[in-house]
């Protein structure tokens, strides 16, 4: 029973250290002993950080909040994989039992022009918010809504919309994409809203606006590598990308 396992491991961590935005950074090595396999990856970092603080050194800054895979705050590339080696798992849900005693583990921040490093593993993902600002919403001012059951929505549409809506906005898709493209994130939102009847009036305007913003932010373009889908902790499908492409094309052809 792994849950009660008592053996501990020793690992070597190679982590990216960078004091502030724009500063020079480097990888540093840390030996971490007495790691329990039942620890989460972030708890292992906590233990290391407490030790660093006690030794008067700077702890490794990393984003996190909910620690249960839903807020999208945690963001680090572990051994070359955004969120680490396990599929459909955020970094905060990754446990040390996925590693072996003696392993060397590399940890790096998301790397993208549009995600400047703030400190160590913390990056600035506000570009994703600005993509939503450009059009990732349905304009329904408070109080103006009809009865919720006034529109019937086929279960299939609603289920597919929900599949896309599960995106937690973590940016792992950008981190994994060889082009640092935010296409999966953008497509997930456009698809979620585009599949619902409420989302129709703004559908094409939305596609143009969100894609336009994505370009402005300095993300790369999608060339259909599909790495984003594999890295996505919520398993958002690249089919959403095809959907956004289609909406964008339609919008271009019909807008004038």
């Amino acid at each position, binding site marked *: 029973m792994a849950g009660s396992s008592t053996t501990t491991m020793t690992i070597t961590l190679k982590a990216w250290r960078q004091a502030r935005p724009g500063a020079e950074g480097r990888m540093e090595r840390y030996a971490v002993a007495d790691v329990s396999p039942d620890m989460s990856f972030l708890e292992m970092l906590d233990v290391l950080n407490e030790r660093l603080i006690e030794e008067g050194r700077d702890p490794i800054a990393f984003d996190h909040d909910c620690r249960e895979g839903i807020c999208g705050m945690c963001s680090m590339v572990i051994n070359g994989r955004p969120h680490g080696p396990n599929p459909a798992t955020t970094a905060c849900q990754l446990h040390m039992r996925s590693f072996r005693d003696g392993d060397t583990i*590399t940890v*790096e921040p998301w790397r993208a022009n549009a995600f400047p490093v703030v400190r160590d593993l913390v990056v600035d993902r506000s570009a994703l918010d600005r993509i939503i600002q450009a059009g990732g919403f349905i304009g329904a001012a408070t109080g103006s809504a009809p009865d919720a059951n006034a529109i019937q929505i086929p279960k299939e549409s609603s289920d597919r919309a929900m599949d896309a809506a599960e995106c937690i906005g973590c940016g792992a898709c950008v981190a994994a994409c*060889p082009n640092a*493209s935010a296409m999966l994130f953008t497509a997930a939102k456009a698809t979620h809203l585009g599949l619902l009847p409420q989302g129709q009036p703004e559908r094409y305007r939305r596609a143009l606006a969100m894609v336009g913003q994505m370009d402005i932010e300095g993300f*790369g373009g999608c060339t259909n590598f*599909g790495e984003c889908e594999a890295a996505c902790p919520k398993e958002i499908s690249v089919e959403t990308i095809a959907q956004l492409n289609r909406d964008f094309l339609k919008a271009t052809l019909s807008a*004038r």
Partner: protein
Amino acid sequence: MGWIADFYRSLIGKKVMMAASGILLVGFLLSHMASNVLVFKDPESLTHYGEWLRSFGPLLWVARIGLLGLAVLHIVAAIQLTRINQQARPVGYQRLRAESSTWGARSMRIGGVILLAFIVFHLLHFTTGTIFPGAEFEPGEVGRNVLVGFSGQPLVVAFYVVAMVALGLHLSHGVWSFFQTMGLNHPHWNRARRVIAWVLTIAIAGGLLAIPIGVAAGLAGR
């Protein structure tokens, strides 16, 4: 017409242009393959085919210029997109493990460069005859040129083989990618998109690959 410029300025616009030109080039290659395998029937048919094409006169030039336009569009868009995409990650990873992308997807850029080099060489080889190692190039004698061009020319054959493998990889991803870029998807036939891509790839790259190899192996009749 400003909207075309706007469209092209967006990353998706460039990609759509690439996909559209790419798929037209695929169309050309399909017929190119179908005609060139005639060499296995007998070289004469291939020669006749060439004569028939030339009988269109100016129209052929229109087609040639069109083809060139497509290629230029495809390549320019590819270069621009590649540059933007490289700028999107100025600081790279110490380590990034690819998980799911195919060999085809990962070799698009290098494959494209090989294809470009190939096309230049290929035009100098069979169209103008400027470079035609081993023998005399005879304008118009298409079937004969193919036979002579590949016989006893291991280096030429090898280059063609490498180029056709690159083409195969390029298409295996490119055709699927075309559907994706154009938004041609539907849960019912998303699987079929991969199948179509592989069928076209095997037909085109396989058919063309057979020619230099077959000729070199003496399978095409003299």
